[in-house]
């Protein structure tokens, strides 16, 4: 049976589902929820040292401090003290061993933050400091790793390198990035009757919160509901690391029998939770005469921090994206996750993809600087193509490669070549300031690389007045998932948005969900929502057919009306009749991605359902006196298939791009020599501000590009645009090259200091000490 496409919010530009609630201040986040009388708040007492042992810990004075309800340490936990998304290798509260500065040791629970702070100051604590491992180099030297190495290989690298026309060798590093979601981590746990708990959490993964709360409290999962009102940003930082905060709240609620809120202020949030993984890369790359890759031998090391968290899958995705958009005939990729005495690094938009991709992109920049070739052409030359140049390192075929098309369209609309010429003239005439332009292609694999996670559910409830409650397993963190699901739901049921309420995500509506992550939110949940809605619609169809006196196949559900036989009825009337006829008005939907698999041991498989593509052209101006730069113009062409809601997708592209610019230019986490973070707030940790974004910004979605097998022809959009920001690095390198013509030595993030060093190197041939 085919349903004719009908006018609906689907594929239409539209506002964010919560837009007016955001703008009026009405939107509620966890910390805004009304507090029941007696609700307690918390302060976390944390480790002052990066590595060592607790020699003594006495909280008895703190316990008797005024306004204190409880002080919890590892010793008081009822069930297990182990958390962690994959391996439960993280203590919720430190036991004897201390692993990083900021590690939670005790939870002080009290009537007010002031009372908690005063009590925390009464904790008697002594520790013995050991020499910490504070970066990748120290971890490699100490052979301190998480898990085993992951290798992906093909062909004969040594032979190919030996025969290569050009060989580049070197190393390269990228740095940590704080998520800097505007809403810090927060959870509110309510103890209910009969040992049950309701936990409001700002989490991308309510099921993990539910499961971990149950495990740590030693109760069944049925006793715990986790509900997510919405998040004030997540970006991966609330995929696994919101769990600890929620579990602490639940433990304290169980201990005190009162509602407990754990809310981290910015400083504690930045201290306790982890970041984007820093990476170090050693490479040897071989090219033929024309600049085509013949071999790439890469070893990558990530800094996982003290626990494994999501470091291994992050490492996998980094390996899966070392190729970015390019065919590599011979290759050897080896990845290792280092174990250090820092906060545990975690998921962050791109999930290792950006770090992997950046390494290869810098290699291509260096080659073009060495050969004096236009790096855009060099990149296009290396694009995946027809067989055999269509196999990724892990053996998956690149079908439907849209990059050649993106490349030619973007080259034309951005006037790349004319601008590159004009920049050459500009640079000849300018001593202190130089400009540069860069082209960055992105190919990004879509799916959780742990295949089992690619499943989702929905629950749709229709009421007798024709109104609808839409539940799905995804969480809303600003990315517009609810807006898209609303559009899908309206489209399938033929109702208008005003009839539908998108419910807060809760584990009592859809169980056993995967994290809203890996850009997969709308792909997975969209299919589940569609299925649930279609089930109800098909149950209504015969009811409507009888009411309208026609064949069911002629019935059309659209815009709140049901049409057929030249007549129409309000959706509510049909629903009302269905109720009288004892037709079920609720349904679940379920979806799993077909056909994906990956074998870790052989490094081969089909881990991705499809690839998303995009490209950017960026232009910068560099001030050779101060190292400051300006982003002058950005052109982006991005492939989201047939967009579910184009305005939302444009927002994801722009926002992702700017966040990537932050990672690559101004955001730098600095620790002192003892592993104490020095950048614990926006006064010292600088994310992009409005002036960092060019006025001249042209973002387009690729037209006529439906993706087969994905919800309404769309494609995932959350992460891929982040990597478009690598175009800024290309542009910076081009500008810096203008100061001396040498191969550019630019550290990342490209702060004014990094740029000034690179400019000095251009002028003198030496990197300043």
């Amino acid at each position, binding site marked *: 049976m085919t349903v004719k496409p009908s006018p609906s919010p689907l594929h239409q530009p539209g*506002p*964010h589902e919560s*837009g007016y609630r*955001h*703008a*009026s*201040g009405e939107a509620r*986040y966890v*910390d*805004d929820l009304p507090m029941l009388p007696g609700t307690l708040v918390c302060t976390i007492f944390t480790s002052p040292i990066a590595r060592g042992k607790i020699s003594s810990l006495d909280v008895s004075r703190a316990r008797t401090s005024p306004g204190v309800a409880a002080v919890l340490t590892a010793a008081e936990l009822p069930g297990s003290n182990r958390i962690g998304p994959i391996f439960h290798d993280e203590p919720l509260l430190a036991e004897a061993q201390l692993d990083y500065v900021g590690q939670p040791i005790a939870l002080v629970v009290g009537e007010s933050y*002031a009372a908690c702070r005063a009590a925390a100051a009464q904790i008697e604590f002594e520790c013995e400091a050991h020499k910490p491992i504070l970066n990748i180099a120290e971890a490699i030297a100490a052979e301190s790793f998480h898990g085993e190495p992951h290798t992906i290989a093909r062909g004969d690298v040594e032979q190919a390198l030996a025969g290569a026309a050009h060989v580049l060798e070197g190393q390269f590093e990228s740095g940590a990035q704080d*998520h800097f979601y*505007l*809403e*810090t981590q927060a959870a509110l746990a309510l103890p209910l009757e009969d040992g049950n708990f309701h936990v409001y959490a700002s989490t991308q993964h309510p099921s993990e919160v539910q499961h971990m709360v149950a495990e740590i409290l030693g109760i069944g999962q049925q006793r715990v509901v986790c509900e997510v009102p919405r998040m*004030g*940003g997540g970006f991966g930082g609330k995929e696994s690391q919101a769990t600890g905060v929620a579990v602490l709240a639940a433990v304290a609620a169980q201990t005190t029998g009162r509602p407990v809120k754990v809310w981290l*202020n*910015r400083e504690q949030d930045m201290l306790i939770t982890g970041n984007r993984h820093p990476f170090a890369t050693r490479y040897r790359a071989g090219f033929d005469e024309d600049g085509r890759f013949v071999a790439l031998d890469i070893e990558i090391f990530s800094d996982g921090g003290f626990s494994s968290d999501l470091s291994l899958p992050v490492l996998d995705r980094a390996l899966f994206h070392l190729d970015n958009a390019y065919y590599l005939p011979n290759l050897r990729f080896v990845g290792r996750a280092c174990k250090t005495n820092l906060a545990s690094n975690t998921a962050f938009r791109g999930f290792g993809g950006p770090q992997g991709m950046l390494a290869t992109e810098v290699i291509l920049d260096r080659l073009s600087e060495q050969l004096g070739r236009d790096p855009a052409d060099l990149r296009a030359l290396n694009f995946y193509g027809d067989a055999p140049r269509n196999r990724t390192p892990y053996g998956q075929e690149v079908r439907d490669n849209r990059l050649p098309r993106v490349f030619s369209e973007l080259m034309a609309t951005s006037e790349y070549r004319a601008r590159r010429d*004009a*920049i050459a*003239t*500009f640079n000849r*005439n300018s001593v202190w*300031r130089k400009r540069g332009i860069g082209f960055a292609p992105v190919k990004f694999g879509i799916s959780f690389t742990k295949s089992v996670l690619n499943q989702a559910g929905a629950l749709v409830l229709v009421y007798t007045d024709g109104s609808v409650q839409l539940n799905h397993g995804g969480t809303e*963190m*600003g*990315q517009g998932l609810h807006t898209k699901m609303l559009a899908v739901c309206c489209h399938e049921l033929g109702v208008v948005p005003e009839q539908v309420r998108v419910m807060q995500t809760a584990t009592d509506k859809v169980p056993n969900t995967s994290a809203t992550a890996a850009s997969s939110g709308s792909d997975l949940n969209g299919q589940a929502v569609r299925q649930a809605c279609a089930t109800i619609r098909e149950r209504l169809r015969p009811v409507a057919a009888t009411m309208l006196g026609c064949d069911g196949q002629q019935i059309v559900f659209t815009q709140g009306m049901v049409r057929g036989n030249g007549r129409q009825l309000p959706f509510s009337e049909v629903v009302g009749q269905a109720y009288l006829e004892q037709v079920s008005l609720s349904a679940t939907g379920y979806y799993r991605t077909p056909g994906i698999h990956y074998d870790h041991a052989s490094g081969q498989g089909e881990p991705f359902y499809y690839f998303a593509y995009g490209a950017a052209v960026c*232009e910068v101006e560099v001030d050779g*006196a*101060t*190292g*400051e730069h*300006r982003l*002058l113009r950005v052109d982006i062409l991005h492939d989201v298939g047939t967009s579910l809601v184009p305005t939302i997708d444009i*927002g994801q592209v*722009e*926002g992702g*791009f700017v*966040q990537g610019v932050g990672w690559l230019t*101004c955001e*730098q986490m600095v620790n002192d020599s003892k592993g104490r973070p020095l*950048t614990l*707030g*926006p*006064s010292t940790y*600088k994310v*992009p*501000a*409005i*002036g*960092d*974004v060019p006025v001249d910004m042209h*973002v387009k979605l690729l037209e006529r590009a439906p993706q087969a097998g994905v919800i309404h022809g769309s494609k995932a959009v959350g992460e891929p645009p982040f990597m478009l920001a690598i175009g800024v690095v290309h542009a910076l390198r081009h500008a810096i090259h203008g100061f001396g013509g040498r191969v550019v030595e630019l550290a990342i993030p490209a*702060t*004014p*200091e990094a740029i*000034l*060093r690179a400019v*000095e190197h251009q002028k003198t041939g030496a990197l300043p000490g």
Partner: protein
Amino acid sequence: MQGAIQFELNGEPVVVEGLSPTTTLLNYLRDTRRLVGTKEGCAEGDCGACTVVVVERGGPQGPGFRAVNSCLLLLPLCHGKQVFTVEALRDSDYHPVQHALVAALGSQCGYCTPGVIMSMFEACYRTDLDAGWKLDDQMCGNLCRCTGYRPIRDATTQIAGTRPPGRFLKVLSSTGPTPQALDYRHQQQRFSVPTSFTELFDVLRECPDARLVCGATDLGLDVTKKHVTFASLVSLHGLPELAKLEVRDNHLLIGATVNLADLEDVCTTTCPPLARMLRFFGARQIKNRATIGGNLCNASPIGDLAPVLLALGARVVARSHRGERVIPIAEFFVGYRQTALEPGEILARVDCPLPPKNARVGAYKVSRRRELDISAVAAGMYVELDDAGLVSCARIGFGGMAATPARAANVEAALIGQPWTAETCTRASQAVTTDFQPIDDHRSSAWFRRKVAQNLVAGFYADTLDSPQPNLPDRPVSTLLHAGGQP
């Protein structure tokens, strides 16, 4: 003298008693009033999620709504003011700024949004937002991690200066409450807002440990980050004399409590080098509160106004119950975070001679992020030439290079008596290494500070070639928009 804090919140009078005077407006709104639309993103003035507006009536552009960071604003500083939060905007319909932001999809997660809305709200009633950079300056104190800002910029552009008729415009045309003295006590804490110098100096005599406070953009951080509970605070905002800003006999006289937004406004025409430095000072919310007195008395080595005031040869006028005395700015900073002020003395105003038209004056700030960041290096440079074209006077002030803002004596010596050329500046720039031994910290390395300082001195000649007192260059535009790629 009143004993309770009184102000107007969203059009309703409020009286506050029984709360610590170091309670921030943000905590009062969220915890006491349950007005949770206003968010906390940092409690250090750097994210803007907590932005509300306060009505200011004395600025050079007339009465206006001023966006401020409620996280740093101590509640007693609201005494006698009108405050509006995001909750006030909607009545039967949403306010035009709300419509504009929603239509532009200017919110994603929405957590920055109430703050963004309140900054846009100020923009909506401002009459002087006539350039693109001013819009960015208006909005740069609001960090948004989701949108990438383009829609926020679009929406702000659309509503800036539109001043829709209605109840808010009426607020601006009404006279507002009259300022009243305050003597607020809570447990061991006291907060006074004297309205005469006699009262002020009496309080300072009574409580020798009293701390002065103006904008609280420095002092507020001690409260929110270090949890200092000050026993006695004295605000200077009730003294109209200290809020005067005037030009007299070619001198700019800047009252201690003049806020930096107003100062920037006036300096744009009267003293471009100072305006240039103020352009990248904090963000709009900070400039709406911060004062010149607070900036100098805080005596931070990275305070931005000192270097340019050193270059301009400004003087500080101190006042105590004994009367006034004048301190050359070069003698004002006596040590790390120490000033020449004596106990019981306040900074009353800054007397800044306006530079002669032909003097070369530059002001520079270099930081990791251009907007809303603390300097790695800040500099003010001033030279005069004699009839023969030789440098007759040179004052080069730096911030970020030493424990106090300081002049570069050796650089100055290397300039004086020399012909005014690029070579002279390049040669003089070498002397930076003998003037300063800067330090490494999380903002930058000593190498960077030294190198930038040298480059700024070396580039000073070129920078003042076209105009002796250049304004900040316009934001550069993409290359193809220049005919033939000419700079």
